[in-house]
């Protein structure tokens, strides 16, 4: 759901840019303090994976496609601030090099898919693990729900921004965006669970990395 230019008015673009720049600046400070030897390659791999996986659009009902966001995977493995940084790098490269997502809409795209998606998934995952325990099954359920929520939340925010910009009314944008992304979120959940269990069975030590 990369927002192109033309969909957002100046106010919405400016506000989301300000929040995103602030978020990135704080995340850089956080990362400076906590980054360890093992974080570095994992962050690089995570960014590379999210970029390549985002190219693989999968078909969803009714002539629509969706693709992985990946924020949940990054946020759960590395922490929400690291997730924010990784997603921001992916979105900036997609915007500047691949013309995917508008230049003026970049702040909103980072806010929706980077900041909100990372934090919603990280804290919902933590909450579910606290309630349901930390055995394999509960963990994977937590991952699935967190991934679904990240896509759903990003689409709701996108609808609100479209409405705030006068591009579409909230009564139209909210149910249609949330509806289609409720489906895309299911696939996000399935892919995230699959990759997460792959990491769990091959490099479970990566899960114990200090979160940023």
């Amino acid at each position, binding site marked *: 759901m990369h927002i192109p230019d033309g969909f957002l008015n100046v106010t919405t673009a400016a506000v989301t840019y300000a929040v995103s720049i602030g978020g990135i600046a704080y995340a850089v400070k956080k990362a400076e303090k906590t980054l360890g030897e093992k974080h570095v*390659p994992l962050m690089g791999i995570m960014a590379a994976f999210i970029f390549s996986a985002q190219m693989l659009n999968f078909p969803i009902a009714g002539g629509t496609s969706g693709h992985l966001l990946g924020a949940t995977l990054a946020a759960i493995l590395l922490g929400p601030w690291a997730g924010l940084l990784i997603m921001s790098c992916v979105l900036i490269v997609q915007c500047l*090099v691949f013309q995917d997502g508008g230049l003026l809409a970049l702040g909103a795209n980072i806010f929706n898919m980077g900041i909100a998606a990372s934090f919603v998934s990280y804290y919902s995952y933590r909450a579910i693990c606290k309630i349901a325990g930390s055995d394999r099954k509960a963990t994977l359920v937590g991952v699935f729900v967190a991934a679904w929520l990240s896509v759903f939340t990003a689409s709701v925010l996108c609808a609100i921004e479209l409405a705030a910009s006068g591009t579409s009314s909230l009564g139209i944008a909210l149910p249609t965006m949330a509806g289609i992304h409720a489906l895309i979120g299911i696939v996000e959940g399935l892919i995230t669970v699959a990759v997460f269990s792959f990491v769990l069975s091959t490099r479970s030590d990566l899960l114990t990395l200090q979160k940023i």
Partner: protein
Amino acid sequence: MKLKWWHIGLLLCLAVALISPLASKSPDGLEKVGEDKGFIVKAKDAPFNVIADYAFPGIHNEALATIISGLIGTLLLFGIVYGGAKLLKSRKKEGT
């Protein structure tokens, strides 16, 4: 050179980029809503093109153009984030 886990990880990411031409060409969720509700016409193209729409310019084979841009993007992001993270980590060591 000893093969590290993330060398294999990066190869897996590049393998994902190799199958990128298989991706669905249908509009994504936001584009579809824009088409159905009529506001897609407001979308403006970027004022500049580098590798627009994930098709490397000048290559006529569509699948190959997609694969090449996928490989470039994947390596680019690994490089930027790996390098950036390394830089941040070294700044911590210096205690600044």
